[in-house]
């Protein structure tokens, strides 16, 4: 789960990391400030807001209110700007980069730091990047901060502050089960003080049971995804027009890939998961009913999910949900024959082979 900059900075504050003086503003009425110039930053869960006009400077109260209203009315990359962060303008001397994230290859958290901050870290040349992999059993220890800051070539005074920030963001990274904590830029002010100019925090959604004070930011999901999420389904909207229901993430992706290779555009990823429940199947159709599609392909390989259960679900859905686009069904595995029989009795044709079902889908939606 991505946090908004203002939420991330609240966590920074909690962990004692210096941030600019700022104020989170959700309504036009709150557009008040008393020390100018001030920075007005759109709060959206996407990169590139600067280029999109989502960051502006205001020189007086009138300017602030005009620009604030303007940004509050914007959408950036399809996401509506719902609030702003007002912040003091900083006297920036240098911009550094600092993050902690998961390195999947080594299965360890990796510290990434650079004295070239303010741009995407992917655009910084490797020789200017310092990386340090942390042993999860050992955790963070001060020597790690020393190693990183000496490699960066920081001055003694900068090094001290940098190590302090690093220790604290590691505590945040661990304490809030983060996937990413990123400070870009990590600002060195003209007076030598170091603070977090921006803040990006991504929390592992699977860890939210132990961070009850955080709640999911809904803006990360489309309407259809939000609907599916609320009903307990794993759905990803893709933008095509063929509805897909399958079981297992891998098989569902393989189904999407098969349709795509055949020239169709899937509307969605929808995984029934390891369930064996008629209502779960019916519910999947209820969600797809809300989507604009030209047909539905159901691809089931029966294991934990029994084919007869799925067949009963499809038959139920046909009666109750009222889908008015073609439905193609593939059933294979546990109780396959029984499932195919149930479908037949309900006037639905089905296939045993996945490719046959994909080819049939191509045919019926043309």
């Amino acid at each position, binding site marked *: 789960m991505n946090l908004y900059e203002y939420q991330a900075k609240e966590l920074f504050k909690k962990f004692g990391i210096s941030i600019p003086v700022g104020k989170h503003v959700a309504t036009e009425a709150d557009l008040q400030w008393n020390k100018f110039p001030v920075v007005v930053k759109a709060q959206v869960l996407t990169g590139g807001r600067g280029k999109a006009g989502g960051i502006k400077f205001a020189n007086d109260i009138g300017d602030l209110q005009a620009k604030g209203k303007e940004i509050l009315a914007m959408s950036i990359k399809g996401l509506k700007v719902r609030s702003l962060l007002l912040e003091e303008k900083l006297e920036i001397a240098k911009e550094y980069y600092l993050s902690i994230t*998961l390195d*999947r*290859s080594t*299965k*360890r*958290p990796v510290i990434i730091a650079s004295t070239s901050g303010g741009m995407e870290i*992917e655009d910084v040349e490797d020789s200017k990047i310092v990386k340090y992999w942390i*042993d*999860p*059993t050992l955790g963070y220890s001060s020597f790690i901060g020393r190693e990183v800051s000496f490699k960066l070539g920081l001055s003694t005074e900068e090094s001290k502050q940098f190590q302090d920030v690093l220790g604290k963001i590691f505590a945040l990274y*661990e304490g809030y*089960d983060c*996937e990413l904590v990123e400070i870009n830029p990590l600002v060195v002010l003209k007076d030598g003080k170091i603070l977090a100019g921006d803040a990006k925090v991504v929390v*592992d959604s*699977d*860890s939210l*049971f*132990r961070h009850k004070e955080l709640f999911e930011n809904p803006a990360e999901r489309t309407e259809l995804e939000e609907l599916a999420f609320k009903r307990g389904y*794993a759905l*990803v909207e*893709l*933008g095509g027009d063929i509805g897909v229901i*399958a*079981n*297992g*993430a*891998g*098989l*569902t*992706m*393989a189904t*999407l*890939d*098969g*349709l*795509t*290779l055949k020239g169709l555009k*899937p509307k969605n*990823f929808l*995984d029934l998961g*390891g369930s064996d429940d008629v209502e779960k199947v019916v519910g999947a159709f209820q969600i797809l009913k809300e989507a604009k599609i030209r047909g539905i392909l159901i691809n089931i*390989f*029966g*294991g*934990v999910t029994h084919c007869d259960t799925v067949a009963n679900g499809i038959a139920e859905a046909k009666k109750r949900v009222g889908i008015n686009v073609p439905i193609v069904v593939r059933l*294979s*595995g*546990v109780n396959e024959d029984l499932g195919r029989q149930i479908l037949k009795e309900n006037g639905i044709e089905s296939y045993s*082979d*996945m*490719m046959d079902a994909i080819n049939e889908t191509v045919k019926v939606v043309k």
Partner: protein
Amino acid sequence: MSILVNEDTRIMVQGITGHQGSFNAIQMQKFGSKVVAGTSPGKGGSEVNGIKVFNTVKEAMKEDPNATFISVAAPYVLDAAKEAMYSGIDLIYILTEKVPYQDTMKIVSLASKLGKKVVGPNGPGVTSPFTCKLGIMPNQIFKKGNVGVISRSGTLTYEIVNLITTNGLGESTVVGLGGDPVTGMNYIDALEEFKKDDQTDAVAMVGEIGGTAEEEAAEYIKDRFNKPVVSYITGRSAPPGKRMGHAGAIISRGKGTAESKVKALEDAGVSVASYPYEIPSLLKEVLK
């Protein structure tokens, strides 16, 4: 021989009185696995289909298990894995999905220090027809044979194993690594086991988007593997930045695309299928 599990594998089920735990304990028994004990705090003294239930792993050690099937809720997986490792269990299989990845990271790091092996979380486990199944794969899709299978998926693995079986081939061992961004065993670990395994003559490697495990496996195959490998990679049509069901199946910051994996594998001399159904014929070719 098989890899990871065999006729000497003695399985304990942590969380045996839960729905998943009891169902799968019985399915494993039916497959022929030796399920020797289960745990469920507060239910010590009871039985599940003849399997003795204990309050703690320490007590369950009386039955001399050497592998565990962990099927407790996500918040308790770290504790359960520690309990197993510190009681002397050598092979830890974790079924549970949605385990916080930092917990998995701790389990994996601790396991490597203690010399333990971890399979999963969020995968279907390890099956060797028909000596032992440690996991949840459907019993009826297997045939004993000479193909090793490694996959990050569940159902897609069954699909492919079923294709192998119904096309006249058979499996030595099938390993489901799990769909999380961090898992215990990865492709290279499994390939290293297959390298030493007499029964395995070829490997089918099923990959998906996210991370760079397939790319690293390709490097390993190119330089250090001794048997033919065929592969299928899923998620070619997945958009960047979206998790495709599995927590680990995500293209982020340009990394983890299917294209990159397919290219790496092909560069390593691996035949990569476009559709799952092509796997058996690719295998037959390399096994000629």
